């Protein structure tokens, strides 16, 4: 029984999105499609231990779900015309070929990341209906209770239905805004795994790998979008450092101290390929491709000293102009300290500080502390690093900052 469950979970990861997408196209409603698909999964759990796993499991699940839809509409009293039509259409298709089309999956992704949903709901829906993960799995990945995650998903489905979100790709004029929404959901999933924002776990590689898989899926569905390839490249470069980012005792190892021989060079090569795909579209680099370019400089440098910091400063300048994001500016300051020294960098940081940016975040004091230490202003540096440690939510990062302050 548990074997069937595990097999079904694996099949669902592979086929789930396509099953839900096909159903959604037929019934015109993603949450109804998802409910039907889950009922079919429940049937499979009962029947497959007896009958064995069908050769084309995706087709089996889709056919069962369609049958359920028809039966439930048949049972309704005062069946309205809309349902009668859908039921007739389904009847016509029920024994037809199971041919999911890529566009259906793309529609599904846009629906899961629809702007009527909050960020948490978009993330949960994407992992659930596109990634094919069970609610328990998603709850575990995000360190929240299973009931919380289930409620979040149910609520998101109700919201999509209430908002009458159509099952389609966005209109051309909305396309790029909506696509960047999809990409930020995927990147958010990645960063949640790459640098856990809370708790004691430094890296949750399963979550990051799932984001990478989602990114690759979107890259195949929308190959003409440079930013999609830029995002995949960025995630490949960052994920290549996983093995080197944790010391044997589980504490984080910062970029400067990482053993670069332990980076996954096959993954770096895949990052290069993805970024080359973005550049080959000749539409210039935007947000993700610029970040990928910076990550690429690090990935190909033999050491901190041998890193092309001039190029990194330029890329940060472009990224800063584009995003107006204070974190980018802070990173530029770090790069400037490598090209022009800590004093020039400190000026940038102090300007940011005066502007009130990043207030309450540990990032600013931790960078400022590092720069002051380099300038030999030890007591100020120690105070900044202690402040940073107080503001950080990740236990391991706190330990690193306090150790730094102590070592001065």
């Amino acid at each position, binding site marked *: 029984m548990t074997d069937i469950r*595990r*097999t079904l*979970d*694996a*099949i669902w*990861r*592979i086929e789930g999105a396509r099953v839900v997408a096909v159903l959604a196209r037929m019934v015109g409603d993603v949450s109804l499609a998802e409910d039907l698909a889950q009922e079919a999964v429940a049937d499979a759990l009962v029947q497959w231990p007896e009958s064995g796993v069908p050769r084309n499991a995706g087709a089996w699940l889709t056919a069962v779900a369609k049958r359920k839809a028809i039966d439930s509409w048949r049972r309704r009293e005062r069946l309205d015309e809309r349902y009668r039509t859908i039921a007739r259409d389904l009847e016509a298709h029920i024994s037809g070929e199971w041919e999911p089309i*890529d566009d259906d999956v793309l529609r599904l992704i846009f629906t899961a990341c629809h702007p009527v949903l909050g960020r948490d709901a978009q993330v949960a829906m994407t992992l659930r209906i596109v990634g094919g993960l069970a609610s328990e799995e998603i709850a575990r990945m995000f360190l929240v209770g299973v009931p919380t995650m289930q409620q979040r998903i149910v609520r998101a489905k109700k919201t999509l239905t209430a908002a009458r979100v159509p099952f389609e790709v966005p209109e051309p004029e909305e396309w790029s805004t909506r696509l960047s929404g999809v990409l930020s959901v995927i990147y958010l999933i990645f960063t949640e795994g790459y640098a856990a924002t809370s708790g004691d776990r430094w890296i949750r590689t*399963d979550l990051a*790998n*799932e984001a*990478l*898989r*989602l*990114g*690759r*899926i979107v890259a*195949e*569905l929308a190959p003409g979008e440079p930013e999609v390839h830029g995002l995949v490249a960025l995630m490949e470069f960052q994920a290549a450092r996983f*093995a080197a980012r944790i010391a044997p005792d589980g504490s984080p190892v910062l970029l400067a101290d990482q*053993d*670069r*021989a*332990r*980076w*996954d*060079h*096959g*993954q*770096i*090569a*895949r990052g290069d390929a993805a970024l080359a795909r973005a550049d080959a579209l000749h539409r210039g680099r935007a947000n993700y491709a610029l970040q990928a370019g910076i990550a690429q400089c690090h990935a190909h440098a033999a050491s901190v000293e041998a890193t092309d910091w001039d190029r990194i400063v330029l890329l940060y300048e472009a990224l800063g102009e584009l995003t107006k994001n204070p974190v980018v500016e802070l990173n530029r300051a770090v790069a400037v300290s490598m090209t022009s020294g800590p004093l020039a960098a400190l000026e940038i940081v102090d300007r940011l500080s005066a502007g009130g940016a990043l207030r309450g975040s540990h990032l600013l004091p931790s960078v400022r502390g590092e720069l002051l230490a380099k300038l030999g202003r030890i007591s100020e540096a120690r105070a900044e690093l202690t402040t940073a440690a107080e503001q950080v939510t990740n236990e391991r990062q706190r330990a690193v900052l306090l150790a730094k302050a102590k070592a001065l």
Partner: protein
Amino acid sequence: MKYMLIMRSTDAAIEASKDMPFEEIINAMGAYNESMMKAGVLLGGEGLSGAEEGFVVDFSAEEPIVTDGPYGETHELFNGFWLIRASSKEEAVEWAKRCPLGPGSKLEVRRVTDESDFEDFSDNEYVQKEAGWREELGTN
């Protein structure tokens, strides 16, 4: 986790495949590869040319003996491989089952070793060197 899907075929299956239109084989394999690309799990793979082009180095005797292919009767000739990333053994099984192979062919599926398999030997000279080699080769 990474898994390698290793294709093995009997002589009979390889002979039988020669009677199939080559384009059909290309199309079936192409669709399989594409499905793994679109699912974001394919990392790489290679196919091998026929055994008649290969040779075997045998270490049974004092000195290695080199024999040109084909090798007489073989039950399991290694014909190529795919490298995929899967989140579980079951997922690797599912991808393997989707491979368009016929009677007489098998896929052997093996987990690819990673750093964690060599944790106890992290100060071994060659274990340390290997990471550098991977960097030079750009492989994983």
